[in-house]
Each structure stands twice: as C-alpha cells, then as structure tokens.
C-alpha cells in the first residue's frame, strides 16, 4: 500500500514564460494531467512547492491561482460532488519531498483520491531580482493511492542548522527598490551532501535495508559538486546517482531526478530519493515502482 506517482511532467522556461513561475506551473500541471488521461476535476488536493514567482507574490498561495488556471473545481461549492484544496509549502529544494509526505498522509487516510504536486521557479525579472542563479523550470507529479505493495515507503528528515549560511534568498530594499537576492557559500555542496547522507542513513536504518538493495539513487539539487560529494560519501560511482538534466533547476529538481531514475529500472524496483536544501534540511525517501 502506498502513494504512487502516476505521472511526472517537466518543463523548461521559454521566452514567453521565463519570468512567470505561474505560467510554467500551469503548463506543466496541464501537461501532467493530459498525459495521465485525467481531468482537472479529479484533483482533490493541489500542493505547490515552488518558491520564486511572479512579482515575488506573498499572498494568496500560488496554488490557488494554478487551481483556477487549470480549471480544477474553481467554482462555488455545490452538493454531491467534491472540490479541490490548494496551498503552498516552502522547503527549498526539499519542497517536493515535503509535499509528497503531505499528499501521502491524505491519500493514506482516504481524505482524497488524487493529488497534484506542482513546483516551479522563475526569475521574477523587471528589476525585482539580482543575479538570479536558477533556471526557469517546472514540474508536476500526479499522485494516487494503491493497495499493492509499492509506492512511497518511508520518508526521513535531518536538520543541521547553519542559519542560512550555505544558501539563502531574501527580498528587501536595495537602493530604494525591493530586490530578491541570493547568497551561496563556497562550502554549500559539502554541507548539503553531509546532511543528505545523514538522512539516507536514517532512512535505510529505519527500513532495515542496505544501500546495495536499492536499485537507483535520485538526488537533488543537481549541482555537479554536490553529486560528486554524495557519491564519495555513499561509496558509489558518480554515475549511479541520477540528477536532473538541468543543473540549475531548483524546486523542480527532485521531480526531474525521480523521473530520470524511475525510467532506468525495472517495475518493482526501489528508488532512493534524496534532497538537501537551505536550512540545512535534508530528506530521504524510499519509493517502490509499481509492477
């Protein structure tokens, strides 16, 4: 029994939507539903884990706008059918993993039948950001429940507080204008990898599994040095750690890594999904592909 990722859709920003996380999210969500052969009406829960967005908007949740734009039960409530609940979560590169855990809870309790996780980031542009270091990228994951022996098995977390020293992003007045700025330390990859390893160890320990019982490792972010560090600390060849193709993807990178990794193994195989992000917070999840 578990939450199954039924379909993953990915998108890169083009010239039309490179400054709109909302448009990227909507496009990816529609694509995901279309490819899964599902109707927007089916979505009970929509969780958006993207962070960098149009106008650096703080309210409402971007998820509500995505819900409206994809047409997932946006109308006034009426009797004898279901609506959609939408909200945002923020947890840096780990956001999709947090969203997956939230979705898993509601699917497990049968509060919902179908959930859509969306994650997109884009440079808000128009003087609202400075040296934006991330790609315009989006991802959507359609999740439902299975009674078979597959899906999300376990998610574990670790924190190693560095008060944002490795990576932080803030919006504040600079020369009289509100600007989104980033700070990245030289040691980010080593620190992220160290936190990720602790999450992996805990996840494997709690599952009574060894690393050689895992079929594939999917990791985020896709930063090359982080991947090298992770491989060295896990004692596996670098090419065994699958990351997103786009090394500057942010919240979408977990979904992109998962999608690539899942396509490389047989049905019933086990994916170890590991993510590290600002905080430092790191999560590791075990996921078994459906047969």
């Amino acid at each position, binding site marked *: 029994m578990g939450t199954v990722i039924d379909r993953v859709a990915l998108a890169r920003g083009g010239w039309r939507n490179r400054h709109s996380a909302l448009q990227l999210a909507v496009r990816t969500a529609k694509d995901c539903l279309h490819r899964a052969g599902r109707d927007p009406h089916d979505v009970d829960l929509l969780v958006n884990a993207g*962070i960098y967005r149009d106008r650096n*908007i703080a309210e409402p949740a971007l998820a509500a706008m995505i819900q409206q734009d994809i047409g997932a039960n946006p109308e006034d*409530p009426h009797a004898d059918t279901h609506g959609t609940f939408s909200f*945002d979560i923020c947890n840096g590169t780990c956001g999709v993993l947090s969203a997956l855990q939230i979705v898993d809870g*509601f699917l497990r309790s049968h509060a919902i039948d179908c959930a859509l996780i969306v994650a997109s980031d884009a440079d808000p542009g128009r003087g609202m950001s400075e040296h934006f270091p991330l790609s315009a990228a989006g991802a959507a994951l359609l999740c439902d429940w299975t009674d078979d022996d597959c899906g999300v098995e376990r998610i574990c977390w670790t924190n190693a507080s560095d*008060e944002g020293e490795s990576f932080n992003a803030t919006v504040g007045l600079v020369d009289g204008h*509100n600007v989104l700025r980033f700070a990245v330390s030289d040691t980010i990859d080593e620190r992220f990898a160290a936190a990720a390893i602790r999450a992996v160890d805990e996840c494997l320990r709690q599952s009574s599994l060894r690393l050689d019982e895992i079929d594939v490792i999917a990791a985020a972010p896709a930063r090359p040095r982080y991947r090298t560090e992770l491989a060295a600390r896990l004692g596996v060849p670098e090419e065994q750690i699958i990351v997103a193709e786009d090394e500057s993807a942010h919240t979408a990178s977990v979904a992109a890594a998962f999608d690539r990794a899942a396509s490389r193994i047989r049905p019933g195989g086990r994916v170890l999904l590991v993510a590290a992000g600002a905080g430092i*917070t790191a999560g590791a999840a075990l996921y078994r592909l459906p047969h």
Partner: protein
Amino acid sequence: MTRRHWLVMDPADGERSAPFRTRLAGAGRHLPATHLTTTELMSTTRHRTHIDLERLTGIHERRVSMGGDEDSYSLATSAALDCLGKAERTAAPIDVVISCSITKFRGGLTQWLEPSMSSFVAHAIGATNAMTFDVSNACAGMLTGVTVANNWIRQGTVERVLVVSGEYISQLGQNAARHIRNIMSKELASLTLGDAGAALLLERAMPGSGGITLAGFTTVADYSRLCLAYPKGDEPAARMFTDARGIHRAAMSNTPLLLHEVLEAVGISIHDIDHVITHQTSARAIRKGMAKMAAAFGDAPRHDAVITVDRYGNTASTTHTVALVEELKAGHIRPGETVALIALASGLEIGIVLLTVDNELVERYGHSD
C-alpha cells in the same frame, strides 16, 4: 467512486477509524507592546480620506512592532515558547515544526524565502530533531498547518507538532496610509492589519478523548485574484490589494453549505457548537456573517462569535489562535466545549476545524471545571 462532499477532510470517527486523535496541548501568543489606535493610524494618511475606519470595522486599536524591534521570526519564536510553557512541554520531543506566516521578516523588513522560517524557529526553541517546512496559505496558513498535522497525528505518523506563525504585517498598513484616497481604495483592508505571533502544540491522544473532531478545507479558486500582496516599488515590505466586498460576498454565500457538510459528517447540529472563532477582519463583517449563518440554519451556536479584532486588528494567519488564547485566558471556554475555528482567506480558502478543549488545557490558563 465520486466523493460526495466538497471539503477535503479526513473521514470522521466511526466512518473509517484512525488509530489516534489529535489533542490541543497548548496555545500561545505574543503581542507587541505598542498599541496603535485607528485614530492615530488614520491621522497619518497622506490624503483626506473621510473614512471612519473604526465605525466601519469596529477596530479600535492594534498592536504593532515599532521600528522593527520585533519581526516575524521573533514574534513566532516568542509565541512558540509561550505555547510550550502553557503546555508544560519541552521542545526536544517535537517531531514537526510548521511555520505558516505570510510575512517572513527577519532582521527588520527583510523577507526570507530560504531557509524556511520553520527551520529558524525550530533552531531557536531547541526543537533540533524536528522536521521543518513552511506552509503558505494566506490568512488560512495556521489552520492549514493544523489540518496537515491532524492528518499525520491521527494516523500515527508523528506524535507532536508545533504549528507556529509570526506576522509582522503592520507595515502594509503604513504603506497603504500613503496611498488611500477614499473608501473605494483597494488598500483599505491593509489598514486593519496588526502584528502578532501565535503557536499551537498538537499531540497524539487516544481515540475517544477530546481534541480535533474534524478539519476540512477547500479552495474556491474562481476568487483567487481578489486579494494580492507583493513587494511593490520603493516601499518597504509589501502592499496588499483587496476586493474586500467580493471576498465577503463569496465567503458568505459559500460557508453555510460547507459548515453543513462538517456538521453532517460529525453528526451534530449548529447549536452543539459552543464557540465560533472566525478569521478576524472586521467586527461588523463577523456579526453580519453570523446572522446570515443563523438564518440559513434556523439556529445558532451557543455563544456569539468571538471578536478580538477590536483590540488586535486583523493579525493575518494568527487571528484564530490569538482569539482562542484570549478566550481561554478569560475563562470563557470550559472543558469539553466545542470550538469551531473558521478560516476565510485569500485564495479563496475556506476551512473549518472543530475541536474540544480538555480540562488539562483549560487549567493551564488558570481555570477549571
């Protein structure tokens, strides 16, 4: 199988049994010391507005952080410590910290998008083993966090969750004061805002004990663009643009059906609700809304809706907890009584959390059965 209720909600007890129940172990808040009256705020408007805001909203004053001496982070941290103190719990065993504020100001008016505010708060209070992430859902943030926490606790995934929020949001009111010309202004709602921190500690309890009976939520997304807040131009923090009438109209027409769903799911009538705490935007709007609800149901909750907006203004995602603590301190809520927390927020988010408080909690505020 098509679901036949509009709200996303866990099956009620008896329908599909969950191994545990969620108990409210503590509720804490922190209010800045500085009082800002509506008269004082309106005297700072750049234009002669001819608006009697106090008559319009019932807000006499709100608490504000002066010159950034307190920010979202410090308000949240102080509230979390107050909550733990009330619950007589330490931070170390907390499994999850969820920060739910709209504002994430730390170090003055600098909004932190990463790391999460929850990781800062968890570190500050010593919840070093806690999983952390932020929920962002406008003024429904805290009740959204409660809904997620309740789902996990009921199923045994985690034992103890701290839902926290610090809203240093009064700067939006100061910004609005520079732009508002008349009563039709889209920034009028910004003048109702006040600062506050709030925290709720939720923990595992056995079935049959008091606690959260049901938590249900929906997003009526056709109204998602009726209230937008974002940093704009050269003003600190952000500005907020609201179609307050549109939101009020949509909320009023949709809430009765959703409340009916909740009551039906748990098998009680509206008269079985002892206290109603709605989102605090305006005393007039709350009274009008409750009158409409009473007309729709032909009955009413046992007590009038709780109003704290007159003293604290609209403190965004913290309003329900600020009001709940007020009522507990005043001894208005007795053990075993049912409280309905109703979220109405930009999105349009509508959520209802039904909970009963136990004797242990009530005693913490100096009262007992």
